[in-house]
């Protein structure tokens, strides 16, 4: 029988990927917030994500809650190992989350909440990148518990992945704004998207080259069959996505750059999946080991199979209701 735990690993991976893409672009909007010229553009940027950001962040809760539900051991190992980055990410998300409401409720403190929106977004993105890097480096496990020190997550590699995620999210944010706005703001973001795109690809290159050296297992997976097939395919697919991004920008397309940026993220995510499999927490905790008993997996799966398609449907509906370009005149009056 096909292992339930692998189905669940797929579902959790899907939730995390959805989170990265959805909250990625709205965190990216926060990261780019200081580049807005004047109150009008700030309002446009914030309003472009305001109706959907809390739905986006719910995927993060699903990632955490889902891990707790079906891979309790992985959850119990990862959280203490990444204690500081996780706590800092949560605190940062608090600041940027409340800024959506607070900045409209005060004149005097508006600049404070603008900084909270920017600072919270960039710190949350950076910490997520660090968490990713620390996970790729590997987490020391002994006796069903985290066995490392509480600074283990910090390394040159994890800082690098931190920057990579910040730049990548900013690219998603810039292309999102290109899609949702017109005029000066859109033109500015088209310019920024060029160097953000180049930066993202640069970071992907460096991280990809460094990853196989984090653990010999990665090296083995990527340079032996069947992994080596991906080693050939991935750069090609990435180049195609990059080509779509830059030609879309050059032609002034509305949607193409955003879709291209998303596909870059999807490809990277697949790459990380190849590196990890069959582990859920490198270097030693496997998907099967970390899984909850089958009864838990089955009970949770029944509802998930029904509810996730419904969630996707009404989330899509909410995006559709608020589709189209932002009307700057409506944003603040």
């Amino acid at each position, binding site marked *: 029988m096909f292992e339930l735990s692998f189905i669940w690993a797929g579902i959790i991976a899907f939730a995390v990927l959805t989170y990265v893409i959805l909250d990625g672009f709205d965190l990216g909007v926060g990261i780019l917030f200081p580049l807005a010229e004047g109150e009008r553009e700030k309002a446009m940027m914030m309003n472009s994500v305001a109706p959907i950001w809390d739905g986006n962040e*719910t995927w993060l809760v699903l990632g*955490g809650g889902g891990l707790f539900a079906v891979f309790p051991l992985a959850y119990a190992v990862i959280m203490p190992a990444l204690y500081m980055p996780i706590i800092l990410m949560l605190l940062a998300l608090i600041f940027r989350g409340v800024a959506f409401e607070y900045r409209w*409720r005060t004149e005097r403190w508006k600049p404070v909440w603008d900084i909270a929106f920017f600072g919270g977004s960039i710190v949350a993105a950076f910490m997520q990148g660090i968490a990713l890097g620390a996970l790729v480096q590997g987490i020391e496990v002994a006796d069903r518990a985290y066995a490392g020190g509480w600074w283990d997550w910090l390394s040159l590699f994890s800082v690098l992945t931190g920057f990579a995620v910040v730049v990548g999210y900013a690219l998603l944010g810039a292309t999102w704004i290109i899609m949702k706005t017109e005029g000066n703001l859109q033109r500015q973001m088209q310019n920024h998207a060029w160097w953000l795109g180049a930066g993202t690809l640069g970071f992907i290159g460096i991280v990809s080259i460094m990853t196989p050296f984090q653990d010999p297992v990665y090296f083995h997976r990527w340079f032996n069959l069947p992994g080596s097939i991906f080693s050939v395919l991935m750069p090609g697919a990435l180049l195609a996505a990059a080509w779509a991004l830059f030609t879309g920008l050059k032609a002034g397309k509305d949607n193409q750059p955003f879709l291209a940026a998303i596909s870059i993220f999807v490809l990277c995510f697949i790459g990380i999946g190849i590196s990890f499999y069959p582990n859920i927490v490198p270097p030693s905790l496997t998907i099967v080991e970390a899984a909850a008993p089958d009864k838990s997996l089955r009970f949770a799966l029944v509802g998930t199979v029904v509810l996730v398609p419904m969630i996707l449907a009404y989330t899509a509906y909410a995006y559709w209701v608020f589709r189209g370009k932002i009307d700057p005149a409506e944003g603040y009056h």
Partner: protein
Amino acid sequence: MFDGMTAETLARMQFAFTVSFHIIFPAFSIGLASYLAVLNGLWLRTRDKTYLTLFNYWKKIFAVAFGMGVVSGIVMSYQFGTNWSVFSDKAGPVLGPLMAYEVLSAFFLEAGFLGIMLFGRERVGDKLHMFATAMVAFGTLMSATWILSVNSWMQTPAGYSINDLGQFVPEDWWQIVFNPSFPYRLVHMVLAAYLTTALVVGGVGGLHLLRNREDAPARRMFSMAMWMLIVVAPLQILAGDFHGINTLEHQPAKVMAMEGHYDSHPDGAPLILFGIPNPDEKRIDYAVQIPQVSSLILKHEWGAPLDGLDTIPDEDEPPVAIVFWSFRVMVGLGFAMLGLGAWAAWRRYRGRLYDTPMLHRAAMVMGPMGFVAVLAGWITTEVGRQPFTVYGLLRTSDSLAPVAAPAVAASLLAFIVVYFFVFGAGTFYLLRMMNKPAGTVHLGLKDGPIRTAGITPIMQTDPDAIPGE
């Protein structure tokens, strides 16, 4: 600041602090979401503008409170792992799926329809907008259902077995979800949320009636809130009584601490109204008590024997003083709510509901008391569960993550600073909004059409109409 404390104490402080802050927002938003659905329904049915005014007023307040609930809730979903990873590993197979269901059936529903409820009326039409409003309210109730099932299972575990890794393994999901204390706790908490919201609405109504007793929306909200109090407060006292009897059956030590019964009473136990718990001597000093009444309340029988904490091993005893006091705060406030509701009902009967300033002042004083009662109630039940996380099975001291005290101390300090700053500011904005009459067009600085505001439908119908860059 936290020198000499163990990681366990600090982690417990951190959990108590973050969860106490968090519960304030759901306690308000569960009731307010239902109230908004009622207001919107009444507006659509009667086309009485006052209902629409009230809907638009409270929905902006809801948006701010809900945002604070979301961000403080994300913290909760990760804190089980960061500070209580052994608990997560052991109880995850049972509790994790319930929490996953909460996310899937409640959080997404709320987040998905919130934008439409707040700003989508013109875009989707009245009917779909009403549907979205109802979905948000339904989502808050679903969320309460699942998370109270989780908490109740920790209080009265059922339907599980324990495997050789020491994990709780599900055996019967029906028994797990509908564990013995769950129905009582759910009813008690949902009613508490409704009371909390009614008190806030009544307090705001009272404030604006004191300023202008002809203020139509203020009259309407005050009247609705007072109706709610007189109906729900008695029900809540009844529900609390049932909940208490259920607790006596499954967690007797908690009830002993609540009652202050250090000693067993084979011939009927007195109700200790007040007194000062003395844990060293194991007695209540200066106790003011009524003979037999405790037996009457808990056993519904004169002279019924009740065991005391002398029957419980010391290492299994909850901290008595905290539970004893928090329980009295909750019960006292419950009766104060009933009193306010009864007073208002009497003034209404005399046709003086809107011109009794003392009543309006009393409603203002009671405005925040629902939050106090909710916190006191949760402190009673959670501290009363100690020294266990899963009652009788997993000790709190055996649930902790392998984290170092300085790490927990640093994060606790960060949470305290950030929460007081962020949620202090949020509370200030909420109070400032409530301070304005319901008819105010711009509640905030500029009535920010925060969410959808910017994204208008005009665009699709006539792109040329958009003002340029």
